[in-house]
């Protein structure tokens, strides 16, 4: 059996990936998380009598804290396996990538373990986040010169 034939056979027998179910789950979990975040935001605005702009960072930090706590308790990955992109795309996904990497490398100590491995997965997001924001800044500046 040559490679082409093999790929054909393997594709025929491939287990289905539940794409519709996963998409629906991501939509629902992501939506619920958005609603919770909105609730937290309103709560902070009411408790501290501050503007939405001031309460937003407090809400983000709260979500990050909860995601890290759930990761440490071994609960987050059990939610994420159902939620998929619903918990992966929001800021909780980033918090989980950092805290799970930190937990994994705890056995190698503070410097060689946690310190150097914490950004193992999240580092990409930071690197390209900064690079793309710098690029956008340049483009925006260029527009102001001509506009």
């Amino acid at each position: 059996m040559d490679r082409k034939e093999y790929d054909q056979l393997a594709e025929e027998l491939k287990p289905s990936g539940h794409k519709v179910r996963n998409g629906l789950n991501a939509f629902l979990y992501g939506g619920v998380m958005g609603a919770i975040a909105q609730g937290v935001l309103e709560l902070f605005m009411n408790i501290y009598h501050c503007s939405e702009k001031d309460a937003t960072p407090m809400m983000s930090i709260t979500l990050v804290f909860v995601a890290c706590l759930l990761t440490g308790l071994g609960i987050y990955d059990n939610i994420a396996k159902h939620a998929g992109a619903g918990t992966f795309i929001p800021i909780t996904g980033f918090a989980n990538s950092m805290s799970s990497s930190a937990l994994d490398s705890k056995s190698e100590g503070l410097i060689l373990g946690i310190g150097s491995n914490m950004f193992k997965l999240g580092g990409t997001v930071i690197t390209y986040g900064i690079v793309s924001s710098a690029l956008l800044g340049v483009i925006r500046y260029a527009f102001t010169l001509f506009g």
Partner: protein
Amino acid sequence: MPSHFLGNSVKLDNVYIASTGTTCGPLEFLGPLGSYFDKGYDDYHCGEKSFEQAERKMLRDSLDICLKREKMKPKDVDIYVGGDLMNQITTVNYLARELPQPFLGIYSACSSFCLSMAVASLMIEGGFIDQAVSMVSSHNATAERQYRYPVEYGVQKKATTTFTATGAISTLLSNKPSDVRVESVTFGRVIDYSQDDPNDMGRAMAPAAYDTITTHFQDLKRSFQDYDLVVTGDLSTYGHKILKEMMQRNKMDVVRYNDCGCMLYDLTKQEVFQGGSGCACSGLVTMGYLYPLLKEGKYKRVLIVATGALLSPVMTAQKDTIPCIAHAISLEVVK
């Protein structure tokens, strides 16, 4: 007349299984074969500080159980052969510090179980030594960490993923006759069918299993009919289906064939995706489950084809394809 290679295979006359020790993790212990294993741990740390140390503890315990059964001391074994899935085959190499005899570290990914059994068997068959211990281990958390993602990372896994089994297996092989013997071995070739998805090992490894099984049958002029059971190591449900179809398309009469990855867990209840994988998968099923059945006479002869994906995460990131291998051993009841 000493044994000689017939193609890639060797028929053996003087290698017997004297004793075995099997230890496993929580999920394997709760699985359908759980009661067959000597010792099960209810958590992945096994009372140790790190997962790597936990894997070593499991291996040490399996070795202790194996030697104690024959009332032997570590010094009585002529040579130790072993492998695991970690970089620098960490588990076996670090355990070997405690061994008073020579140690032969081998790596063949998940097929290390059959390779270490085969290498130890050949040394006994050749008359160089009287007894050897073959030992392998794998641990879900150490393998996940090295090959995939952090243990607590929340990611949705692909439907084709397999689950690395947690367990350790030590087997004492000897030239002194016992109930079950290693009847033949077939060494595999490295086969690459241009598969590059590290989350789809069954599909990558099935061609290697196919190659080794057909080579074994050709070399020894046998077929599925000559075995009470043929098992592959860790092709999983998907890989098992592919291999079966490949063999049927090649007009082979596939009977009494199963995969250790499908046997070790209850695939309907336990969350292991397509099934089990890792050195411990074929090792636990063979030495924990099939060996006692051979001793009881329920099977006369079984063929174990342990499969291994020889991938390196670095090469996967460089978009290289995955080389795969399968080594086979046949176990037979002594008449």
